[in-house]
């Protein structure tokens, strides 16, 4: 038996699988016969108990414990535990329990799906380990406001690479500037009001292209990659490539004032001075929808990154939410007493921050459409921007203020950072994955260091700041394959995973509306033409009458039948009553 015990641990590693089936250890020829003879009675004793595999396993383990060369016991058996917090982070919806009287198939389906989602959740939580970066913040000394720390001080204090992220571009000629960062955060696009457009790899300060379009530039926007960008010029919308070559002049889109690009839908949404909200699918170059908002000039625009709904701010103080699928706003909310000057939505789609002419800054919960808090800025905010880390920057005149913890429930009291610039601020945008705020103003462009602004971990398969051109191409193909259709845009992005509970009638109605005709409708009865005078007007009428109201006939017949039955019953009842009424107590003795 001892030899057997020695034998086990060595083998288990190699032929683990086979061992599960072998109830008896193999015997070697060099093992002496006496030994086996000794073993026999033991086995016979054992066989009574041993029939089940479990018991044998137990025995083995016991024997192993008693044996000479003990296997080292794993002090942490099983899989490493996952912290509850991490698990919760990746939880999707509530766990569904199997109902009490569930059938077998239902039970199996629920159990398997639950197991699968649990596995997915656990694995994701485990892999969360691979996101080690953490965001930090600027912390002042005691009784020192962080907003008094100047950018120069910060740039001096930090390492040289980070320090180089604070810079100014003096472009006083064609000012004020609008700007946009690419999705990966490497590329910067600036567009001066007076026609100056330039795109820069801002980290290496590599100028990709620079030109003057010789027209008013209202807005600039990167498309899905850094290879293309859209410029809203005086009349039309233009698309250029990164070398500055004009690719398209989209004449369907006129007088565009603001643009937003929806990266997962490949949609460029534009808001024009004529009050039109238009969607351009850049993957196929088609206009998906044009919505007449009937709200006047649209110069305040933002997108909800969570559900790709476009938010528009209007002069009458309302903010309206739009999707390309509806001709009327999904939601219209009154936010300010004066006109809305600027608005922005955070990346989770939970909060919206607006500022208006009434010099108020309001934070809304746009899941419930309820204001959380509002505060008063003496100068009012002309531009707003929310960073990935949740910092809010507001441009008040020539000063940029950055607020921390705006999205919490408590109102803010003082800014986290502030920076004064030379001219009027025109554009404000945080750089993704960087602690940098880009400011476009009358005198050019300023890149400002805002510690804690960017998301520290990036998804290399989605937005990789360090991707090569090959990777970019591959990403582009994949992104195009995974393109979300514009029909799926709505307030609830999870709408697709829900069962459509509309009634048949409603669906049919919608179908009729969409098709323009009723696919289920019967075609009208058309009497055959017959000869020998049988197709006279009268005869035709007669024939028509034969089939007239055929669909209603059954119904009518049924109702008539029901009515007659009811009448009959009533009559019988009344008869019985009558009889009862006539009867006297003595009637029972009557024979």
């Amino acid at each position, binding site marked *: 038996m001892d030899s057997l015990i020695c034998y086990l641990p060595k083998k288990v590693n190699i032929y683990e699988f086979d061992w599960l089936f072998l109830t008896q250890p193999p015997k070697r020829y060099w093992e002496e016969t006496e030994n*086996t003879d000794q073993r026999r009675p033991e086995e016979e004793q054992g066989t009574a108990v041993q029939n089940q595999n479990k018991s044998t396993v137990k025995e083995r383990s016991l024997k192993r414990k008693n044996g000479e060369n003990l296997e080292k016991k794993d002090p942490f058996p099983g899989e490493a535990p996952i912290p509850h917090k991490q698990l919760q982070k990746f939880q999707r919806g509530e766990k569904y329990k199997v109902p009490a009287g569930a059938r077998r198939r239902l039970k199996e389906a629920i159990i398997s799906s639950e197991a699968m989602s649990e596995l997915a959740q656990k694995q994701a939580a485990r892999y969360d380990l691979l996101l080690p970066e953490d965001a930090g913040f600027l912390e002042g000394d005691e009784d020192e406001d962080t907003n008094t720390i100047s950018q120069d001080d910060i740039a001096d204090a930090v390492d040289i690479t980070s320090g180089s992220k604070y810079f100014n571009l003096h472009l006083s000629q064609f000012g004020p500037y609008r700007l946009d960062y690419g999705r990966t955060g490497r590329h910067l696009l600036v567009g001066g009001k007076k026609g100056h457009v330039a795109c820069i790899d801002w980290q290496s300060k590599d100028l990709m292209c620079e030109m003057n379009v010789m027209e008013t530039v209202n807005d600039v926007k990167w498309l899905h990659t850094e290879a293309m960008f859209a410029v809203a010029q005086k009349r039309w919308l233009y698309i250029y490539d990164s070398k500055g070559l004009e690719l398209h002049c989209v004449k369907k889109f006129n007088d565009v004032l603001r643009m937003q690009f929806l990266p997962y839908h490949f949609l460029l949404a534009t808001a024009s001075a004529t009050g039109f909200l238009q969607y351009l699918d850049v993957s196929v170059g088609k206009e998906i929808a044009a919505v007449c908002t009937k709200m006047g000039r649209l110069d305040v625009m933002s997108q909800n990154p969570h559900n790709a709904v476009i938010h528009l701010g209007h002069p009458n103080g309302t903010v309206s939410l739009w999707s390309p699928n509806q001709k009327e706003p*999904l939601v219209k909310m009154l936010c300010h007493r004066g006109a809305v000057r600027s608005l922005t939505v955070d990346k989770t789609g939970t909060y919206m921050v607006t500022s208006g002419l009434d*010099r108020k800054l309001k934070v809304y919960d746009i899941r419930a459409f309820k204001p959380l808090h509002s505060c008063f800025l003496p100068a009012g905010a002309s531009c707003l921007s929310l960073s990935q880390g949740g910092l809010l920057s507001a441009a008040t005149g020539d000063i940029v203020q950055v607020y921390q913890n705006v999205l919490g429930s408590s109102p803010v009291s003082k800014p986290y950072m*502030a920076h004064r610039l030379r001219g009027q601020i025109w554009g404000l945008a945080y750089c993704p994955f960087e602690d940098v705020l880009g400011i476009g103003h009358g005198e050019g462009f300023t890149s400002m260091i805002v510690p804690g602004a960017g998301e520290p971990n990036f998804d290399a398969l989605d937005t990789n700041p360090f991707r090569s051109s090959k990777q970019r191409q591959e990403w582009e193909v994949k992104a195009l394959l995974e393109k979300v259709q514009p029909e799926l845009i709505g307030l609830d992005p999870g709408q697709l995973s829900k069962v459509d509970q509309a009634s048949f009638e409603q669906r049919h109605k919608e179908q009729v509306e969409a098709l323009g005709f009723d696919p289920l409708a019967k075609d009208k009865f058309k009497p055959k033409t017959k000869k020998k005078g049988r197709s006279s007007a009268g005869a035709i009428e007669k024939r028509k009458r034969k089939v007239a109201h055929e669909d209603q006939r059954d119904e009518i017949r049924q109702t008539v039948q029901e009515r007659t039955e009811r009448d009959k019953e009533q009559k019988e009842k009344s008869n019985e009553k009558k009889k009862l009424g006539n009867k006297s107590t003595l009637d029972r003795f009557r024979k």
Partner: protein
Amino acid sequence: MAADEEELSINEQAISASEDEEGSDDERKHKKLLEAISSMGSRKRKKQNERSEASVQVSEFFVNAEGTGEKVNLSDLLGTVEKTSGASNKTKKQLRNLQSSKETLELPLNKQQTEKIQRGIAYEKTAAEVSCWRNIILQNQKAEQMVFPLNQESPGPKRVEQVVAGWKVQTPLEQEIFRLLHINSQPVDDPVLTPVEEQSLKAMSLEEAKIRRAELQKARALQSYYEAKAKREKKIKSKKYHKVQRKAKCKDFLKQFDEMVKTNPEGALEELKKMELSRMEERMSLKHQNSGKWAKSKAIMAKYDDSARKAMQEQLQMNKDLTQKIVVPSDDEHESNEEGLETIPDFVNDSEPVIDSVNPWMRGQLTHEEPEVSCVTTEDVQTAEEENEEEELVGEFERKRKLRQADEEDLIPTEEEQPASEVVEEDVVEVSDKEEEDDDDDDEEEEEEDVSEFNTLFRLMRSEKTLEEDEEGLLNEGQIRVRNIEDLEVLGEFVDPQPIAEPSLPRTAAVEATSEPPYKKKREIDLKEVLTKEAKAVKVPFLPTVVDEEERDEQISIIKEAFAGDDVISDFIKDKSKLEAAGRPEVVDLTLPGWGEWGGVGLKPSRWKRKRFRIKTAPPPPRQDQKLPDVIISENRNASVASHQVSQLPFPFQNTAQFESSIRTPIGPTWNTQSVVKNMTKPKVITKMGAIIEPMVKEDFIKNKTTTPGGKGPAIMLGENKRAKEGTKRSSEKHRGRRSQKRRK
């Protein structure tokens, strides 16, 4: 007296019987008569089958039915038994008992009922039989993934322990054998492998095995290519082509022979002998003597036709050439010296057997002796010299063929220098080098491309290996391939001092070169250039930035004044109320004024009528923005998403919540880790390519249930795997049997 009386009575009975008989005779006659009469009628009556029986009272027309209603009693029969003496008492008693017992045997059930019962029983039986499948079917239905064919054995060899369990030494012969084995360095402890086995495992690592496999694969491929080519060439019917080729071969051979005379006089001598033999044959035969049919016809034509004359002359010339004696240029002394030096002649190592000893053209080994590179160069020179295009072409063919041949020969590792064990490495190097040259060739054929593919693979593996070896420093051990036990013995002694640093060195250098990142121009970030510092520093930008709303009544009033013109709030409220009103269902008024009462100007339909004919529809569900005064939420349904949504609940689910929860986890790689995605999207059924999927056999799953008995059983127990194999075999046999039966049918 009594006896007399009895006798009398018997007599009487007999008489009466005779009388009866007479009577019955009469009766019969009468009947016949009647029948005859009836048959005389126009109609032929169907003859009734009637049972006739001899009895005392017979009716006028047919047999008396008296006594038919009564049952035959046992007592009636028993009377005679009692009297017979032969019957045993026992049977009599039994019969008596039977008689006394009043129970009668029941009638057998009618056919329908018996069949019904039988069907029921058969159903139960088959149900029981079939029900043993139920578990396995259920299990398969439940299974997330099925892999067909079901009984897949793990590939690879198995240890004896796996196959045979519980086997022990019994016979004295076996004991003797094992004792011997025991003595002779066989392991006493129980490692899985014996030291010899382990050694052999070590001798051939996985990489080596892979390399070897690739090598063989390549050799096979080359061979097949060559064969295919030869076949193709053989099929060419052009006589001219063959002629040209033959000539080229001849030339080639001569050249090689010349060289051989220098390098390998022994071989040359052999060749010479062969040539001599062919000369003799030529002399003996009438070939090329212009005596054949063709030659005669040409002779007739020769008068008029120039070409025919030429052909005849050519024939004669050929004969002359062939019969000419060959002069050997090499001197004998040198040869003898050479012989003295070389103990073993080279051609001993020739791998290719000489197919046709007489025909020197068929001998491919001539090229073998030469180094391949030089061969190529000489050939190149030769081709340059050739002026004839065809010959050039043929030469090209030849060269390629030779190259390939050389490859093959290289791959079959027979090098004179290495005794006993071969060094794979060098062969490989040669092959790869040569193939590189080949690749350089302008006109590559498809086959060669394939070959080069092989080579790249091969080289890759080799380079990996060499790198590894460099790291490990185990240079020699990796090279030696041991094939059998004899080699193993050598293994201990054999120490090859040859390092293979030379081939590995340039490779590592190349690797370094590739790993070195290409020089990239990096821009120095000059802060002074880019950043221009502002002179004015913002000290304390704004002290009271945020002021509470309620405290600033003044400002509010100012703003109110500013926006007095456009009352935003009231506009919004109006808007909302309008929308709400639009959402409310309208009351349908069906009143017909003047119907059933007076109508006209100034007359309204009565109140009762209005009440009766105004139909109110049910109010719609409350608006989403009912409790949000400053929000208007559109109540329109998003029909565009609806077309993509699931509209009917799929089968096992009973409500929407169940279904929605089951699809709440996305399965795409965007949201999940790779392993989870694989797990989630794994196919329901996997089939092995090319494998026949047999229907399931009972043995397959029943064997899982029956556990192997421990003590009792046959002396040699077969392992699980073997049994499974048997099961499959049996099943396959069964199927085959079935199929053959079908065919027979």
